[in-house]
């Protein structure tokens, strides 16, 4: 399946949605810092993998789908739930990359410069996440899904 990038989708983002994302993202980063200050690095580190974008993103994706269907004269409630569910399945696959990013930081930070670690860990996150996504979309898994339930959580969009 081809991955598409629709720049026109930016126009559909409402001003309050930009503000929600910015404020929520900033607040989570401050919260992670405060947790680290109050309870130490071990507990503070957990919040580096806090689902920061995901809850707001899933709600906005659901709202966008509902609005999109409503414009065509349909009730998009069900469609909104399903698309948000697909987005969540993608986030779960992305977590493999997130764990890889953290592992590289853990192993390399004491031996390399921070910039070099980021330059290594960020592409690793992307490659790992894409790899899991591609595997999930591949024919091998599609055949397995046919034998199982048709409403699997990782059903492709």
């Amino acid at each position, binding site marked *: 399946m081809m991955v598409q990038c629709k720049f026109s989708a930016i126009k559909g983002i409402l001003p309050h949605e930009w503000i929600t*994302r910015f404020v929520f*993202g900033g607040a989570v980063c401050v919260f992670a810092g405060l947790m680290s200050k109050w309870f130490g690095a071990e507990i503070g580190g957990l919040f580096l993998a806090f689902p920061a974008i995901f809850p707001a993103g899933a709600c906005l994706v659901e709202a966008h789908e509902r609005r999109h269907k409503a414009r065509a004269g349909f009730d998009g409630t069900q469609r909104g739930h399903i698309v948000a569910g697909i987005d969540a399945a993608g986030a779960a696959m992305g977590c493999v990359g997130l764990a890889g990013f953290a592992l590289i930081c853990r192993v390399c930070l004491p031996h390399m410069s921070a910039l070099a670690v980021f330059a290594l860990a960020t592409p690793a996150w992307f490659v790992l996440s894409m790899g899991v996504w591609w595997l999930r979309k591949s024919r091998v898994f599609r055949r397995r899904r046919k034998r199982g339930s048709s409403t699997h959580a990782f059903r492709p969009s």
Partner: protein
Amino acid sequence: MTEYILRFLIGGAVVSLFAVLAEMLRPKSFAGLFSAAPSIALATIGITIARHGVSYAAIESRSMIFGAVGFFVYATACSWLLMRKRVRALTATAALLPVWLGVSFGLLWAWSLQR
């Protein structure tokens, strides 16, 4: 105080950037990958290194692995709830946040017991 203002501004910008990327990309399962981007880590690890040193950031990174496993369980549960039970996204994502907390802290606790 300056550290927290910096965290807020950089964090807000990085999270917004990844959110916009997720908005532009299709199919949605691929865009979902960006919902689990290391946005908080990218925004704050640099500040942590400058303030507390590399070894402190390395300890945070180890805990981040447990947080990522918690996120995986949380996102999978959200996906199941949204697709099978057809609940609202806000309800599912808010109600299941204790799953992330439970799994992350549980793994950290199990790790600390082993040492």
